[in-house]
């Protein structure tokens, strides 16, 4: 394959998959800025190695793995995984997000999780990855994956009240003391 053909093939990959990868980056990071950085850096790295990539049918898998490892790596420098509240952008910042009908509390609670817990939950519930696949991707053991997932879900359960479970204001009948 000539260099021009390779470039065209790579451009086609970007055109067809960058939007999906942006969505993936967005749920990983919680904001567009970091999501875009992840996608762009992953494509840059793949482009540099493109002539050596034998399994181009699996290029998207390579990109996704690169993105999640970059995401962990950029945060790995923080020795202590810290909670960063309000990570997801506010829904008031973007009209498109106003149309989202999901649970804002749950999204916010997800943003407050440490990065590894959040990443494991995204891989599990967005990518539908098995614990074995997650362990391979993150370079950790399956028990550690389960531990992160367990702790993340537990934190979400603690801080999240299902929208349907929030009672609306109703008149509470006054209790009448029993006559003795």
């Amino acid at each position, binding site marked *: 394959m000539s260099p021009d053909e390779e470039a065209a093939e790579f451009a086609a990959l*970007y*055109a067809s998959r*960058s*939007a999906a*990868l*942006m*969505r993936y*980056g*967005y*749920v990983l990071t919680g*904001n*567009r*800025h*970091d*999501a*875009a950085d992840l*996608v*762009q850096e992953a*494509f*840059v790295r793949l*482009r540099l190695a493109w002539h050596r990539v034998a399994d181009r049918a699996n290029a998207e898998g390579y990109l996704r793995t690169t993105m999640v*490892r970059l995401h962990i*790596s*950029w*945060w790995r*420098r*923080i*020795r*202590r*995984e*810290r*909670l*960063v*509240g*309000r*990570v997801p*952008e506010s829904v008031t910042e973007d009209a*498109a*997000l106003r149309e*989202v009908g*999901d*649970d804002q509390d*749950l*999204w916010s609670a*997800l943003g407050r999780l*440490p990065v590894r817990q959040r990443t494991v*939950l*995204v891989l599990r*519930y*967005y990518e539908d990855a098995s614990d074995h696949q997650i362990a391979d991707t993150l*370079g*950790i053991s399956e*028990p*550690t994956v389960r*531990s992160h997932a367990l*702790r993340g*879900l537990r934190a*979400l359960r*603690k801080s999240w009240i*299902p929208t349907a479970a929030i009672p609306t204001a109703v008149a509470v009948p006054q209790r009448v003391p029993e006559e003795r």
Partner: protein
Amino acid sequence: MVEQELSRTLHDRAEAAGPVPGDLSTILSTARRRRRRRAIVPAVAIVLAVALVSGGLGVAWWDRSPYTGLAPASKVSPSPLGPAVGKARPPAANAPVRPADKVWPEAVIRMPTTDPTGAKAHPITMLDSTHVLVSAETSFQKQSALRMYDTKTRKFSAITDLNPIGDLHDYYPQDFANDDRTVVWDADGVDSSGHHVVQFLAADLSGGHKRLLASIPGSLSVTELELVDHKYVVYSEPLHGGVYRVPLGGGSPQKVAGSTGMFLAVWPWASDVNGFAGTDRKTTATLRNLVTGDTQVVHDPGTTFWDCVPSLCVGDAGTDASVVVDGPDSHTAAPDYVRLTDYFVLNRFVDAAYDDGKVHNGGWVHGDNGRKTYTGKSLPHLLWDVKTGTVATYPLSRDGAIGLSHHSGMLAWHDPDHAGQQIVLDLAAVR
């Protein structure tokens, strides 16, 4: 139920992500320019070094010799922890919040971003006022060697490699600790049977004598190490607590009596509070001296605790209100802009986030010189010096390093004004 809702929320949110900004050609050309600029830096530096040496200043700025040819490190003394802080001082309610390197210039040093082999040089901690313990990152996420950087001579020297002892793969050194003679570290790896193992290793700060202290099954992930009395390395089990010690002469980890459910604070103190362990936020914190058995119980009505060190606990009192509890019936509340307080650094600083209620443009904030600084997330990071009440922000750079712990107060980020240099902030040097 939360699992189903989480899946739905993630997929719904993803649909609102929008397109990647920029077309492919722009992204690739920008990356090429960035890489080319990086490649030019060493050449410029070599010319500069030659010019300076020939001018008689004797400054060895850059050394292209291979790792094995570097001079051995000399012994140094560790930085002492400062005295305990008494009453915590709150930040001013409307103080201007400035970058940490401007607030504490006496704590700033500069050093190259790469070592003589071209590996990224990530500062870990100051060994004394002029020597920096550095890890060399040769490839993606791979810390491959320990170096020492001398800020006076501007030379790197070799301490040891960080390769596994034995046949391990997917091997990642995690945390480091040192005294005046020895550096120790733990590393997670996978053996030939596919089992995860943790290795505890040590080397002499004078260079070499790398040895395996202990190897245990499992994965320790992020935990904090401390060297005690030239005899032991101590650490906490990161998920469930329990403080363990490994003899520096080698041997299996032994659980320290009375440490069940406790996390290492500053030896010999441990506490049952550790927000990073995913434990429930506690309304009562217990600090225990694991040598004498002395116990302090800290309770502050309405406060849930996140982290404790001897004589101080940090926590939340109601929504987003951050406090430091510094004695019975005594707490110091931070102003509203100090958010998400989480961890003590060197018994003096609280790591937190800065939130003035404004949107910070997806991770970029304006510095006091008008320059924009990348923070990595939407809230800039902030340090609260509870000894003086001073606050300062710091950038979270992808190419920088953050070594904030109970024992280490090291921050580093690339110097935007000097290519190839990084700004290193040693909080232990703050007056």
